[in-house]
């Protein structure tokens, strides 16, 4: 693997690691890092439901029409599609549910009366770049936002002239490896962060992972089914590889609610699912070898 530079930081509530491959001076790397951190802050200031100063927080304050930044297009468009395909299970309006279950800005993790989210058509109307709210509502973009942001970080790296890179946004990967030298990525054991259940090989695109292992409290974890107001219990870990982080991240959430075969009719991706009993299901093309026993 070519030598390069790497830097780590914490942002949007998770831990980032960025590797720039190839010859890149220390000064250039610092420049790229600064640009990336600035971009992430800008994104967070629009989409975070955890910050008092975000656009999302302003939208939650009153109804009206809001002009979204250009990057909202692909993000909201994907949410629209996933909302339809998952029968409303993947929705930005899940914010109210998550907050009432205790996953809000204060990280209280004390569930109160858990509320169901309203239907999309009752609240939202999207006509890029304008998002119209019929009534105030808190929005959550956690299902696909991190993967999307990793894509945007990748664009910054490429625009600074670095062709090969590895972005790890808290376990969601966007990367590009030199030909014939794929990155080897351990797939974390759902119950043991010091172990792996397989190794994926990535040439490019994105690998995103999701699971209840970390963000869980009481009977809940960070994914709540709007129809049952409970967190799905039949998946211990799920991974998706796709062309970009936006899609891979969004699909890891969708797979908690929708069989892979149905989603594969609309999107191109590979997946792997580990059940709580450690049973493994994966698409034949998922680029990993697994450690299995019968």
């Amino acid at each position, binding site marked *: 693997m070519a030598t390069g530079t790497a830097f780590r930081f914490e942002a949007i509530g998770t831990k980032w690691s960025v590797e720039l491959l190839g010859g890149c001076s220390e000064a250039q790397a610092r420049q790229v890092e600064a640009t990336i951190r600035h971009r992430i802050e800008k994104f967070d200031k629009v989409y975070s439901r955890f910050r008092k100063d975000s656009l999302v927080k302003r939208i939650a304050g009153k109804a009206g029409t809001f002009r979204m930044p250009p990057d909202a297009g692909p993000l909201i468009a994907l949410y629209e599609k996933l909302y339809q395909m998952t029968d409303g299970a993947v929705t930005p309006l899940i914010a109210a549910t998550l907050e009432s279950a205790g996953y809000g800005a204060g990280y209280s993790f004390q569930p109160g009366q858990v509320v169901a989210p309203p239907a999309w058509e009752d609240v939202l109307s999207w006509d890029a770049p304008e998002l119209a709210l019929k009534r105030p509502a808190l929005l959550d973009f956690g299902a696909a936002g991190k993967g999307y942001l990793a894509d945007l970080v990748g664009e910054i790296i490429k625009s600074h002239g670095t062709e090969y890179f590895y972005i790890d946004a808290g376990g969601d990967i966007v990367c590009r490896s030199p030909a014939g030298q794929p990155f080897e*990525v351990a*797939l974390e054991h759902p119950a043991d962060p010091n172990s792996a259940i397989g190794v994926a090989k990535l040439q490019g695109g994105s690998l995103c992972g999701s699971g209840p292992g970390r963000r869980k409290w009481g009977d809940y974890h960070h994914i709540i089914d709007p129809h049952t107001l409970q967190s799905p219990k039949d998946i211990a870990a799920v991974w998706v590889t796709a062309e970009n982080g936006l899609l891979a991240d969004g699909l890891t959430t969708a797979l908690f609610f929708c069989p892979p075969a149905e989603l594969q009719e609309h999107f191109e991706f590979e997946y792997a699912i580990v059940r709580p009993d450690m049973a493994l299901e994966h698409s034949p093309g998922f680029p990993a070898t697994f450690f*299995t026993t019968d």
Partner: protein
Amino acid sequence: MMEFMDTAESSKGKVIAWITVIAAVVIVYLVMTARAHNTSANAIPAASGTGNTTSSPLTNAGPGSSNSGQGSTSPSSSSSYKDGTYTASENYDVPHDVEGLSVTLTVKGGSVDSVSIKQTASNRDSQEYQDLFASNYQPYVVGKKLSDLQLNRVSGASLTSEAFNEALARIASQAQA
């Protein structure tokens, strides 16, 4: 079963049924032969009964033994599995062609350590059916220590911030109080 072969609509179901039967037979043979003494490790499995299938001899590439399975005979208890790697391949007829599927399992410490399926279909329809089988066959995953794997890149559920971890620890201690 011969009637199946003539019906166009059930030809897809027929192929899937064949693959499943053959793979199940292969797996049963592998497990049964793994129990057997060394001298029978080279036994050619009996034909699976109906249809036209051919199989390659069951080979045991066990530790310290050659591929022909003529290593030393170790005393075996009635319920022990002989450690090693076993592979069996089957060919099966599909319309106008013959396709193959190979199953490998390893026995370690007296039990099955891993099973893998090698898809060797060349025809597109066969590839699809073998894909279907492979994705529905149910393996179970086990963990290997990251330190043993010597990999420093990991993907999993989103890492959490310090603030998040502290909050979780806080409610956990409150729950215990």
